[in-house]
């Protein structure tokens, strides 16, 4: 299944909505999108991942990349599926992002 990426930047908030599967082959497109939305130095990156059924190493690496590129960036994962949360916990990435059921207030 392919990955659909929708992105928008509004004030200090960057949003990316992902639908489908984020595997190694889809990662370059996402990375390009992240690069683009971070160019305006947003304060937060909100990833809508409710419809993301699978995230491989490549996807998580992009989150790390975003964090390393802009250490003060707050990354929100909105409604990730349990398997994705589980992977975040097992690999130690969970503490680096905010996992939430709703978009952060004021976003």
């Amino acid at each position, binding site marked *: 299944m392919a990955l659909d990426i929708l992105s928008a930047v509004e004030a200090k908030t960057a949003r990316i909505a992902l639908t489908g599967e984020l*595997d*190694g*082959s889809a*990662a*370059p497109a996402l990375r390009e999108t992240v690069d683009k939305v971070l160019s305006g130095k947003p304060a937060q990156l909100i990833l809508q991942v409710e419809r993301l059924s699978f*995230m*491989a*190493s*490549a996807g*998580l*690496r992009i989150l*790390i*990349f975003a*964090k*390393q590129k802009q250490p003060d960036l707050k990354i929100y994962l909105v409604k990730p599926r349990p398997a994705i949360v*589980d*992977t975040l*916990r*097992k*690999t*130690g*990435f969970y*503490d*680096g992002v905010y996992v939430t059921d709703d978009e952060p207030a004021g976003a």
Partner: protein
Amino acid sequence: MSTARLALEERIDFYPTHEVSGVRFRRGRALPFGATIVPHGVNFSIFSSAADSCTLVLFRKREREPFVEIEFPREFRIGDVYSMIVFDLEVENLEYGYRFSGPWDPRAGHRFDKTKVVCDPYAKVLGGRDVWCKRPDRSAPYQHRARLAFDDFDWEGDTALEIPTKDLIIYEAHIRGFTSSPTSKISAPGTFAGLREKIPYLKSLGINCIELLPLFEFDEWENYRPHPETGQPLINYWGYSTVGFFAPKAGYAATGGLGMQVDELKNLIKELHRSGIEVMLDVVFNHTAEGDERGPHICYRGIDNRTYYILTPDGYYYNFSGCGNTLNCNHPVVRNMVLDCLRYWVSEYHIDGFRFDLASILGRDQNGAPLSNPPLLESLAYDPVLGKCKLVAEAWDAGGLYQVGSFPAYGRWAEWNGKYRDAIRRFIKGDEGMLGEIADRIQGSPDLYWYRGPTASLNFITCHDGFTLHDLVSYNRKYNEANGEGNNDGANDNNSWNCGWEGETDDPCVNALRERQIRNAATILFLSRGIPMLLMGDEVGRTQGGNNNCYCQDNAVSWMNWDDVRKEAGLLRFFSKLLAFRHAHRVLRGDKFFEHRDCVGSGKPDIAFHGTRIGEPDWGGRCLAFLICGKHAIPQDDDIYAAINMFWDGLPFQVPPAPEGKSWRVAINTSMPSPEDIYDGESGPRVDSSEIIVGGRSIMVLVA
């Protein structure tokens, strides 16, 4: 400033000069070996001294056929190193290997085969066995598939713990065996993540170092076979058969299928460190998974067979490992690979120490003869990156080289003390004439390590290889039929005693004696100078049903049964308090040998041996007592008096005078049922008499 940055990012030596099938590349950097991410590309570098040519083979992840093969142009080879930078690769979706062209001349040591794709000896990640025991496609042309690793893990300031060696208490465990049982009741049984969930258990037990059985990538399907009678699958469970030295075992990660084994393992190590627990890896550099001349072309054989392996004059493999081949560890190229590998694990994974399997092989020369000054062992001892990590040798090999007490140590190496294991086992089961040796073993084996100190002695009574402690006191002989080798595998000289009944029994007297014997063994282990090591599950009476060689048993025979934590709560309590007792008494953990004299003006020698009567050790008998003077510790500690009675009946032991102004209190009495078998601090019964009765096959420890 901006000009300098531009110069770094737009370096003229990072642009492509060649192209094949739309893939652009250029001459690379010879060092470092392996695949390294560089600006806009990946640098591939590999050594072969005897190949005629080399081809880089690039795959998209998990695809059977490569998307491109690029032969290294002649000008890309520097000396014996082939290197190139390939640009614009999808590094997350990449797998790579090599084909080498060269002579097929086994008598001369060459086994090149250009039809085979071989993996990189420096591969940091290996695919192909991503999920434990998922049956591989044996017809695929490339089985163990090299991938790239990314060093972007957030360690949050973690670093190696550097716990003083004298203070270590090691717990030997198997990643799968520790949590695979459904009784573990965790979310990711048998994985790095699963072990992480059990860290609170380890912490409450009191260990401060976990030694993990091999976790370098290996093939659990190697030598797979169904049991000839039962049909039960027999696989390579232990993993003493390395495929790739730089890559963690993907199948040990719950996220291995996602290619995230590196992150999951690092997360485990970070959490262990947060809990004050060091991580020691059991590493296997004595041989590889390629076996002898009948084995597969995975890597080394197809790259430079004559360099990587010790060969007979007619080109066959010397087998000092008992596993088909012997890595040529003291060849300078292989030696550097071992060094690079260990430096990588220390710097990238924050590993605190290594236990080297069949380490005596690391001291053999390129013809297999033992060296008096082995370059590899010396290099490891003095390596700056490894400068603070623990180095422990299994100081023997399968070729008959036995170096316990004589392993080339360079002031750094400790040894698995096999003589400690054998002596304590014989003493506990009641052999006579052991006391002289037992006195040495309790003191840290000065007879073996007088010039190295007691921390050269890693003391153990049981380990993965052999009986568990429960089975040591429950079986007179091994029961390895389940291994499918007609009970011919595994050691026959176990120095075990079944306490009167072979195997499991309902007899309360036999079981009570076994409980006591387990406590006796543990008490001696944790009173001894040196580094104590406990085998996974011994603290809850884990049994392997008499199997003393569970290398192929990935099932309940080998696994920790977590129901035992509840069922054997008394035994677990004993162990955790015993470990706490050792932590609380620094006089037990000295890093110098006792001198048998009063060194501090306390009026007593640092250690004095007695028999049932003070000052009269009966070296030919089965009873031994000793008094350790706490004033010899810095800062001062309690005095500790231990009375060990391995005679079958209770005996009276004279008690030495307590230190002035103090009274003796019972700390341990292995003849008593829980909870009177061990006491916290000064909560034990006071001993005012000049004599105590120590039960048959029991130990009493007093503190004052």
